[in-house]
């Protein structure tokens, strides 16, 4: 493959980067996966051989240049190789969310007209078979795990390892063709197509070129000084742009190792064993971990609990300063060292964060307490702001300038502009090529000069030059009296309480705000256990009087804090109810990346919204739910609606406005 290695200029595609890595870092690990209880690993040289065998096998199956190959499954080295093998033969990989239901898959598969599907296991194969009649262009499916698939009709179904074997056998016939196709790849060829999760409407296929991915990977790797000996854990959905940039873009650019967990359930154990040096997680993961720590500390003995509280208080005081390299007194340093030995070190070890050099959180706002907790332990957790359309990076926080309320400065090579309405626009080498088969949306989002609308409202802080995001531009509205309404702002404040998993605030065009609350079963369940509160189901716990009391207290606290914000003091929550079911992506209430679909929730629970505003104290409702196997059922409940105390907006604040 030496013909591909033409120095930095020749590195214009992911397969070219793979060839360079195989030559340069041939013997260092590229992939690890825990299987049969042991971490199996593949070096860059082995990876290149595996990818080549698969690419030859794909040629053998008749993959043409420009074909779409859908890839569905959990994070496994084989599926990452599939993406690179697809690129090598001039096809376009389209990773799909593995937890999508069959209809969602049908839409995406028929929209891109995938001729080939590479699926992880029987579950995914079954879903594709279920919808294949409607897919006119679909021809062949390749599967990884043969379990349960022995009896299936294999005319159009092939085992992954067999495809590779056939590829190796046909090496002589196809190597010339493979080299020809690989050599043709350049910065303008399509690297990947990723479907947006679709907060509103149908998902859109975002076409990203090699230029987008490689330029972004280069800039961001340099920004955080990523090296070949870094380790990441690949556990986020493969269909998500972040995973593509981290586990393919940056991994291939920097040559670091991608580790795949044994199964989704063993993620935390695997994280601890690998102890990644570069880590990415959405805020939800950090929240869950913190909640679990706190639950376990509540259950521990008095001495341990007191020691923990004492040193955590100290860490909260000096930890962030130490991390940012600011002056800290000698005594405080010494005490922090002791804490490191007694508490922080073991805690980081238990969390799998011992070696984290750079950690990122993005996708949603993170609670300041949560953010500070991790930073005070000495974990360099930072925020970034990004989008699929930007190949992730729009802004990120440089080391030493980390705050929980901003999302950082523009990433290298990115220009930012705030439009008149407050919407954030950006332009960068990472800006997507187009939405596939959707020129109208492309034109709506990206203008002639390459500026892209983010759909988010925000402003640049003058003092620091950091960007602050307020809310989705579409969601920011006005209440009946004209006051600004930013639901996400309020919801995020509420979600920072461990007891609250999800919140949906209504109020656009109304005279006051009301909210739906979802309790966090782990946190509230543990609390109930400690207080001897018996409950038989989620629904019963959610309707428990003491739970409602606790939630009410949280809301009233939040109201007080909102009241201090001159612009948004009108967004205080006047009435609320605790939902009888968890909001779920299977019911269409959340996106697959777990973002709230405000409009759909408003329509689906219209009766509850009405009850919030008509002053009634309780409401009876029936809700249709979809079980994991696709069957539907109904939940019936009578929900209590409560009033929350609001802080009257002082005339002074009004005058100031």
């Amino acid at each position: 493959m030496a013909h591909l290695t033409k120095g930095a200029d020749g590195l214009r595609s992911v397969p070219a980067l793979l060839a360079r890595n195989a030559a340069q870092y041939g013997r260092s690990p590229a992939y690890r996966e825990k299987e049969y209880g042991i971490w199996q690993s593949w070096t860059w040289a082995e990876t290149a051989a595996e990818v080549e065998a698969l690419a030859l096998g794909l040629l053998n199956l008749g993959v043409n240049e420009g074909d779409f190959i859908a890839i569905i499954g959990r994070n496994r080295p084989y599926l990452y190789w599939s993406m690179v093998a697809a690129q090598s033969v001039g096809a376009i990989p389209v990773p799909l969310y593995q937890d999508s239901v069959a209809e969602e898959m049908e839409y995406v598969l028929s929209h891109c007209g995938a001729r080939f599907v590479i699926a992880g296991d029987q579950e995914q194969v079954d879903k594709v078979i279920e919808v294949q009649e409607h897919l006119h262009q679909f021809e062949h499916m390749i599967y990884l795990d043969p379990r349960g698939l022995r009896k299936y009709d294999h005319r159009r179904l092939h085992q992954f390892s067999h495809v590779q074997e056939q590829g190796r056998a046909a090496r002589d016939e196809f190597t010339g063709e493979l080299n020809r196709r690989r050599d043709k790849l350049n910065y303008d060829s399509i690297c990947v197509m990723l479907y947006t999760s679709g907060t509103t409407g149908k998902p859109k296929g975002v076409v990203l070129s090699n230029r987008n991915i490689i330029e972004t990977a280069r800039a961001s790797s340099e920004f955080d000084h990523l090296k070949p000996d870094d380790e990441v854990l690949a556990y986020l959905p493969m269909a998500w742009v972040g995973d593509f940039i981290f586990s393919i873009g940056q991994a291939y650019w920097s040559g670091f190792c991608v580790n795949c967990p044994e199964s989704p359930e063993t993620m935390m154990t695997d994280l601890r064993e690998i102890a990644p040096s570069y880590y990415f997680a959405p805020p939800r993961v950090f929240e869950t971990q913190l909640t679990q720590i706190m639950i376990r500390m509540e259950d521990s003995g008095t001495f341990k609990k007191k020691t923990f509280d004492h040193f955590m208080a100290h860490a909260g005081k000096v930890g962030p300063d130490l991390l940012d390299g600011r002056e800290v007194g000698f005594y405080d340093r010494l005490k922090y060292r002791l804490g490191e030995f007694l508490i922080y070190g073991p805690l980081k070890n238990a969390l799998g964060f011992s070696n984290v050099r750079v950690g990122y959180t993005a996708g949603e706002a993170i609670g300041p307490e949560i953010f500070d907790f991790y930073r005070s332990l000495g974990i360099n957790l930072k925020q970034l702001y990004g989008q699929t359309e930007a190949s992730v990076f729009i802004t990120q926080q440089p080391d030493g300038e980390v705050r929980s309320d901003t999302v950082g400065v523009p990433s290298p090579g990115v220009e930012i502009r705030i439009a008149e309405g407050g919407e954030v626009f950006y332009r960068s080498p990472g800006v997507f090529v187009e939405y596939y088969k959707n020129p109208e949306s492309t034109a709506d989002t990206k203008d002639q000069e390459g500026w892209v609308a983010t759909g988010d409202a925000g402003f640049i802080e003058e003092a620091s030059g950091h960007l602050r995001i307020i809310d989705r531009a579409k969601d920011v509205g006005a209440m009946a009296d004209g006051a600004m309404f930013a639901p996400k702002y309020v919801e995020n404040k509420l979600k920072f309480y461990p007891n609250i998993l999800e919140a949906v605030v209504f109020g656009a065009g109304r005279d006051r705000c009301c909210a739906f609350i979802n309790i966090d079963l782990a946190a509230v369940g543990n609390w109930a256990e400690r207080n001897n509160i018996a409950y038989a189901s989620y629904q019963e716990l959610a309707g428990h009087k003491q739970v409602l009391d606790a939630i009410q207290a949280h809301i009233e606290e939040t109201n007080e804090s909102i009241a201090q914000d001159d612009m948004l003091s009108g967004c205080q929550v006047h009435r609320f109810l605790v939902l009888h079911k968890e909001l779920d992506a299977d019911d269409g209430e959340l996106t697959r990346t777990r973002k709230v679909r405000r409009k759909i929730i408003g329509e689906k629970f219209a009766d509850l919204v009405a009850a919030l505003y008509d002053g009634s104290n309780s409401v009876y409702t029936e809700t249709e739910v979809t079980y994991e196997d696709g069957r539907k059922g109904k939940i019936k409940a009578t929900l209590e609606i409560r009033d929350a105390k609001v802080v009257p907006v002082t005339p002074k604040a009004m005058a100031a406005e």
Partner: protein
Amino acid sequence: MKDTAGYITEDGRQIGGTLMEMRNITLRFGGVVAIQDISFDIREGEVRAIIGPNGAGKSSMLNVISGFYTPSEGEVWYQGKKRPPMKPYQVARQGVARTFQNIALFEGMTVLDNVMTGRLTHMKAGIASQALWWGRASREEVENREKVERVIDFLEIQNIRKTPVGRLPYGLKKRVELARALAAEPSLLLLDEPMAGMNVEEKEDMSRFILDVNDEFGTTICLIEHDMGVVMDLSDRVVVMDYGKKIGDGTPDEVRGNEDVIAAYLGVPHD
């Protein structure tokens, strides 16, 4: 019943010759006749169910197969040979593994260790070697661990590998029991009410695992179960017992249509 030609199931699987044959088995406890003159066979690769109302003698029959009880009269033929009276561990060495109706795991040990005990019949190192952890013992451990890990992977219990069994919920314990039985790489797997006390979802999972075991490893399975839906879906052939007697034997459809069976057990068929 002497033929070894086998048959082909509805879903197209080839079932082999006779693996085990019970000939005129009678089992008495003092004056109580638990099993009365029952004959049936289990063929290689099939899923064979034994059903019947409470106290019909199903578990006794399974205990006869596993060697826990020695029949008062009759013969057990296994792999073409008449089986002399044997201890259960000797039967286990011949490739018969089982799970229990009331879970019988080591509660204080981890899942991994419990499943490893399933490999005991395959371990040959002596006490000295085991104690010193030297030579054969450590080599064997590695080999056995690999087999066990494949079973753990197969039954998707990686996440509880190191969890003590006592902390697991019931449904998972059942799965660990199955894992231990599978680790023995049995040619005949006996399942005593594998779905008892499970909710619908757990039952579905367990059914899938049983079918997958049969499909992937070609293991012959003999199971006792109360849930009729499960039995009829899973098994290739069904033996029906009532008061220690065999009152039916055949495919699920044949058994469903058998009037004795309906009267004794299934009750009046719906619509």
